[in-house]
Structure formats: C-alpha cells, structure tokens
C-alpha cells in the first residue's frame, strides 16, 4: 500500500512536471521597471524625523510675537503710541495672527500624522 502510494507520488510528480506555466519573456524587466519607478516616487516623499513638542511650538509663537512687539516698539518708541499701535495691530493683524496660529497647528498635525504613518509602515 505504502509502496503503491510512493510510486503514485512519483508518477504524479512526473506528470506535473509538464504543468509548469511560462510567463512572458519580459516579465523580469517589467517588474524591475516598476520597482525603479516606485523607488523614484519614494525618494520624493519627505518624512520629518520627529515631531516638535507642544512646548516648543508655544515658545516659537511667543518668540515670534515678542519679535513683532519689539519691532513696533523700536519703530514707534512711545508707550501711549505703543498702546495705540498694539490696538491697531490687533485690529489689523488679528486675522493674520489667527491664520499663523492655525497654520502652525495644521503643520503640527500633519507632522504627527506623517510620523504615525511611518510607524505603521515600519510595523507592517
């Protein structure tokens, strides 16, 4: 019984040798071409290595506001005028400040998502 099974296995193996399928002759070069293309696309993708902390972002924004304040103080030099200036800055630039803050937050969010995706790719 066992011998019969073995000879049957041998016969099946010989028959199955004929069943191999032949792919197109250029399959190898097509795969290599696709791979090179993918690598070029990958090279264009930029990943930020680390996410700035919330503390750093707040400090960055504070420094930015101090620089702007100093600039106005130096250019006007008068406290009364300064108050007026700050009021007018807030009045004129409030929209700008909001936009910059929103941009900073959006940038941080994108960085966070980018890092998350990178971690996920590493894991999978």
């Amino acid at each position: 019984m066992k011998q019969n099974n073995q000879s049957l296995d041998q016969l099946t193996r010989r028959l199955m040798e004929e069943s191999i399928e032949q792919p197109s002759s250029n399959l190898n070069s097509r795969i290599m071409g696709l791979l090179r293309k993918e690598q070029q696309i990958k090279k264009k993708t930029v990943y930020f290595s680390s996410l700035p902390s919330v503390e750093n972002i707040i400090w960055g924004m504070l420094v930015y506001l101090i620089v702007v304040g100093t600039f106005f103080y130096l250019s006007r030099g008068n406290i009364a005028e300064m108050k007026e200036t700050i009021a007018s800055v807030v009045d004129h630039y409030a929209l700008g400040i909001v936009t910059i803050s929103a941009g900073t937050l959006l940038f941080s969010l994108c960085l966070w998502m980018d890092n998350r995706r990178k971690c996920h790719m590493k894991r999978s």
Partner: protein
Amino acid sequence: MDERKWIESILAGDMQSFSCLISKYEKMAFTLAFRIVGNREEAEEVTQDAFLKMYQALPDFRFESKFSSWFYRIVYRTALSTIRRQSLFSDVDDVDTSNVTVEEQEQASALLEQNDRKKVIQKTLKELPKSEALLLTLFYLQECTIYEISQITGLSNVNVKTKLFRARKHFYSVLEKEMKNEIKDLL
C-alpha cells in the same frame, strides 16, 4: 550565490540580485498565480504585484522559514485578493476515501509516452477545482512539504493531507476522462 546572499545583497541596495531572484522564482510564482486566477494576463499582474510586495517586505524576512514558502504565501494572498476571496478552500469536504484505480494509473503511465501530454495535463488541471490544482502544484511541482503548504494556505497539516489525497484521486479520474476524449477525437 545562494538565496541568503542574494537577499543580503538586495537589502544592501543591489538591484541585480533582485533580478536574479525574479529569474529564479518567476515561473513558479506565475504558475501558482495562474492556478488561482485562471488567466494569463491577471496571473502576470499578480506575479508582478507579489514581487513588489516581496521586495517591500524583504527587510522583515528573518530566515525563520524557507524563503520560497514565505514568498509563495505572498503570491497566494495576492492572487486571492485579485479574485476577491478570503480562501480557496471550503471548510467541509465530501469524504472520498477511494484511491486511484489501477486502470487510472495505467492510463496515466501511458500518457508519459505521448508527446502531447503537456496539453492533456494542462486541460486536466483546468478541469479541477482551483484549490485542488493549487495543492497538486505546490506538492508535486514546487515540492513543498505538507508543513510548508499549511504555512502558505493557512490550512492545518491534517487538512492539507486529506485535501491532497482527494485532489490526487480527482486528478487521475479527470485525466482518464480527458485521455478517453482525446482518443475519441482522434477516431
């Protein structure tokens, strides 16, 4: 150069070694894909995708299993997603414990003498359910062990053995019919 060295070279950035790996496995990968998807165009796409996936996953390959089994599993999963199925195998099988008959075996042996046997065998495999053709290909053509097949397909060892036995029986009975049809056509 052995496979391990090829893989290490690929990881070091040598694209030529990857081309060598493709040359070694393209026929087997294509044959597996063809058994599952059933047509040449889609089988080539599956083969391409499987090689690209393999390249991306190569840094995670730890040489804990045979490279071929690991790669065939990628081909199998890629082909399954192409035909949008979770598995090729049904849970419940018809119980068929009959073995290959002497007549079937003799007919098959006679086929080895014929020049056009390739056509008959390919036709026979097309007649079989995809799952059976795949198991026969993995075991008899790719020479995978039962354990390796269970790793590739996700079936248990016992299940692989049972299904393989049934597939072989089915292969011989369909082969016999095909040969009779061929003779009829000749007459």
